[in-house]
């Protein structure tokens, strides 16, 4: 019997603390598999965010650093500048990256910092109990938009991938989803491409991964993935937004 699929060695043995059906688990797997398949475990340093993935340093089987909320791109910059041969990635949620960390991600991108950013967009603040995020959809109910997000009061959601793609610094930006197996396979290809971009020294790479938050959306895992497909993809179109050869 040959192994068709098993858990990668780039994930530790520690059971994930995420909610049942949370797509963080899928995305962790894809990132870990990419690092494993590219053979760069011993060069890799990951930067964990503040958010549900705050304990990511317990799950990725490589050197890790915990960053303050939003600051991961700056921490990654300091780390990568010390040893440019390291493969440095950040793993950030939508509050971490698009709210408090908006300056740090913009400038890491425009500097063309040779790091890889995995941006997990689930349109809500998960860890703190379901508040509105910069990526929350108009009309979406959260604990701080109880009447549904009103663009007149709190503006429109932010499309990070398109925004960063307008800059000259980035070498690869794409948006993917993980709501079904086909999209998971595409997401993996994109994540691997992002790491390859870094390894080839081409510059800044970011993969925005549309994700579900069943708990704070108030849905079952199945309903959440369907909601993602029906509502998030129209707001956040999938595809490669920038690619430098």
């Amino acid at each position, binding site marked *: 019997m040959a192994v068709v699929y098993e858990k990668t060695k780039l994930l530790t043995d520690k059971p994930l603390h995420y909610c049942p059906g949370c797509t963080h688990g899928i995305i962790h797997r894809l990132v870990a598999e990419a690092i494993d398949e590219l053979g760069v475990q011993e060069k890799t340093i990951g930067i964990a965010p503040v958010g549900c993935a705050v304990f990511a*340093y317990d799950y990725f089987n490589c050197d890790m650093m915990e960053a303050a909320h939003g600051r991961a791109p700056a921490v990654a910059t300091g780390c990568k500048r*010390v040893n440019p041969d390291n493969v440095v990635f950040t793993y950030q949620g939508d509050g971490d990256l698009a709210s408090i960390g908006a300056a740090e991600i913009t400038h890491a991108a425009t500097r063309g910092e040779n790091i890889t950013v995995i941006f997990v967009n689930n349109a809500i603040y998960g860890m703190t109990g379901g508040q509105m995020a910069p990526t929350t959809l108009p009309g979406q109910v959260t604990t701080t938009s109880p009447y549904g997000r009103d663009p007149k009061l709190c503006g429109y959601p932010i499309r990070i991938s398109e925004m960063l793609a307008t800059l000259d610094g980035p070498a690869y930006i794409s948006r993917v989803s993980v709501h079904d197996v086909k999209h998971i396979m595409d997401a993996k290809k994109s994540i691997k491409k992002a790491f390859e971009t870094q390894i080839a020294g081409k510059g800044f790479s970011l993969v925005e991964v549309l994700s579900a938050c069943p708990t704070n959306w108030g849905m079952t895992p199945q309903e959440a993935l369907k909601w993602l497909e029906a509502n998030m993809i129209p707001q956040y179109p999938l595809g490669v937004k920038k690619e430098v050869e």
Partner: protein
Amino acid sequence: MGEKMLMKGNEAIAEAAIQAGCRFFFGYPITPQNQIPEYMSKRLPKVEGGCFLQAESEVAAINMVYGAAGAGARVMTSSSSPGISLKQEGISYIVGAELPCVIVNMVRGGPGLGSIQPAQSDYYQSTRGGGHGDYRMLVLAPSSVQEAVELTQEAFDLADKYRNPVLVMGDGLIGQMMEPVEMPEHKERTDLPPKTWAATGWKPGCGRDRAVINSLYIDPAVLEKHVNHLYEKYAVMEQTECRWQEEMTEDADFVIVAYGTTARIARSAMRKLRAEGIKAGLIRPITLWPFPAAPIAKAAEHAKAFLTVEMSMGQMVDDVKLAVNGAKPVHFFGRTGGIVPTVREIITEVEKLAKEGK
């Protein structure tokens, strides 16, 4: 090395850092320390392995310091009061993660946007946290460009020795004035522990544990243990790293306590007072933390009174009072807003004390 050069304080500090092996600098422009990032931007790219980056903010800069320190490098940032306020979160994280780094604060008038002139109103911020949580930082306060150079070099060794940030506190005067400097040749210390904890890339069997640079300890019992461990380091610092300078305190009736730029002015005042027949002395803390309580307590045995002079509304005076512990009166004189006290003003204050018999 060995020759005297006329150097501006900010530039001398930057050069001293490079001599001490600092190869990474992340900073942001703010008056009155701009010459530090500017000097670093010119010098570091010419040094092997050197990297200068102007960050998008002081917040980003301190987090770049965290990342570089976590990767095992000698790294520095500099700023001035409002920028140091921005860095407080990052400093707390650097302490919690036990990372070494050097932070330079060229203090300016505050609060808020304040003024760009010299001040000493960040004493509380530097010695009473500034950032959140239980922690301490070595705070070094030079009073000349030469001393700033020596303390900056030592700061890197102290940071590595204790795995804790070290703050070098100057002010606009020390940063901007030009004085003769003999740049000491930095002797690389062989007694510092190797940075086997740094995140440099790992795989199973490579000879060390997987590095996790982190300050999150969600289990309270574990966090308590961690903080106690930090405080064991601080206890050693209190025992071994306290520094100060005393002049004419053995028979002093009135002891002036001042640091940094203010100490130089106080020294001139003290000498003039002595010439007038008033027995004045000076205690100049060089480490603001750990604070030199012992020499102050000793002076309190024979002195009549203390005068603390600061460029603030009175922050260090609290520590002087604690050290004196009620034995003798502790008075305060200060100017704030960026105003520098004059020799005459300090003399007048001590003369008043002498006259009133306090």
